[in-house]
């Protein structure tokens, strides 16, 4: 498998005014292959989101190297797109205009971007809602818009920052299944940050478990479950075994530090 993302000894310390500096990431190294689905779990404030933001190019690390296909990441780019936790939809834009955002900023011609956005809206199961505003949609539909928007620019890497955390349990299960289908079809490299062990185990090729602050990698667990995965798999003893293995590693971090 060719390497897509490479993080070498990445470190970042936030220095807010009038407050103690916070080390968000410390000596963080990770390699992710092309088309791989990697989840990151860890205690709150362990730097999971910081890692995504560095990958996205919104923050620069203090130390270390962050590379995409062998080139250092210097800023945001069309080869990466993020799906945000609270959806991050522009409330004054319709579903269609929200999905078009990335293409519009890229300067893609109107008719082409409209065509592409419509395609993705249909794929996301949002047909008929093109002219709705975000406040008229349910949480699950909002995140479908978020996913369609991220996919619209056809990025190589999809970054997902607890994308389903704000959804109810059933919608969440549904969205996970849909995400796996999309991933299977588009072959994107996915970095998926979550608090849910079950979600990480169900979706991923590998699960990265981070330590409490300062964030570093504690252990990486390979998920051996076959694909395509379905909901019934979650009831299997193998799946439960995997979950408890992840939990055992994570538990020490949660209990030690609190």
């Amino acid at each position, binding site marked *: 498998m060719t390497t897509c993302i490479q993080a070498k000894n990445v470190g970042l310390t936030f220095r807010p005014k009038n407050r103690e500096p916070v080390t968000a990431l410390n000596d963080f190294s990770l390699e992710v292959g092309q088309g791989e689905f990697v989840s990151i779990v860890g205690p709150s404030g362990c730097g999971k989101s910081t890692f995504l*933001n560095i990958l*996205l*190019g*919104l923050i620069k690390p203090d130390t270390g190297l962050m590379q995409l296909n062998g080139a250092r990441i210097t*800023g*945001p*780019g*069309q080869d*990466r*797109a*993020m799906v*945000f936790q*609270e959806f*991050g939809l*522009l*409330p*004054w*834009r319709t579903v269609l205009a929200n999905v078009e*955002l*990335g293409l*519009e*900023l*890229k300067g893609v011609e109107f008719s082409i971007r409209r065509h592409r956005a419509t395609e993705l809206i249909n794929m996301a199961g949002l047909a008929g809602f093109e002219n709705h*505003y*975000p*406040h008229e949609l349910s949480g699950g539909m909002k995140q479908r818009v978020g996913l369609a928007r991220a996919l619209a*620019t056809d990025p190589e890497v999809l970054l997902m920052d607890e994308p389903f955390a704000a959804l109810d349990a059933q919608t969440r299960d549904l969205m996970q299944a849909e995400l796996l289908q999309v991933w299977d079809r588009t072959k994107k490299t996915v970095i998926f940050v979550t608090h849910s062990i079950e979600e990480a185990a169900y979706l991923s090729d590998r699960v990265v478990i981070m330590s409490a602050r300062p964030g570093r990698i504690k252990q990486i667990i390979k998920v051996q479950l076959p694909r395509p995965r379905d909901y019934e798999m979650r009831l299997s003893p193998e799946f439960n075994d995997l979950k408890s293995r992840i939990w055992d590693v994570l538990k020490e971090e949660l209990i030690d530090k609190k």
Partner: protein
Amino acid sequence: MTTLKSFYNEKEPYILGIGFIALLILIWESTPLWLTLPRGMALFFTTPSKIAGAFYRLLINGEIEKHSYVSAVAFLVGLGLSILVGLPLGLVMGRSRTLDALLDPYVTALNATPRIVWLPLLILWFGIGIWSKIVIVFAGAVFPMLINTYVGVKNVDRVLVNVVRSFGANEWQVMKVVVLPNSLPYIIAGLRLAIGRAILGVVVGEFFGSSKGLGYMIASAATNYKVDVVFVGVAIFMGFSLILTMSVKSLESRLATWRPEATKTF
């Protein structure tokens, strides 16, 4: 009977609102019939019918047109300039720390000073013609415009800015796609304040050192005890302000179709 009742239920706020105005006008009009005012006070008293008569007279002889035109020009040019200056300045001050630090002392000091204190100086500099009024209107209206835009920009949703930046937007695109639409409710509120200040500027500017305009018409009528003419001027200002407030409201509701609920504003 039922149709009348349902008609009433449907239009109750309007019927009550208009009915109460009509009642008050009737009481005012009939005051001389049941109350004898002392001579001194009667001089300063007028009735709606006399005001309407004065209005008609002034309309026919072109006085209203002449004065309204001068006031409207001062208002529109002054307000227009304040939007052209206040809005962009508020946007860049909200986004750039350097410009904020550079300009903030002036904005704070000038905004804290009552605009009227500049009037004598403005009359000396710009004369008693229209320019001194335009400048005083501008001075009153530019700050609510600027400050509200600034606050709107400062309150921009950081997540949304990051969303747009993550798609590779430059600063200009961030401004256009997130900052400006996100600040629009603040800007509209600023515009409402600015309109109020601009009308105040027109009136005050024309009260002192002027030879034309509705403010001048009111002030000179008052010195000549023409109370009905004073009321005509007041009524014109009232009508003008109402029309403007309603226009801003309709602009507001047209721009806010994406928002979940509308709140009642005055």
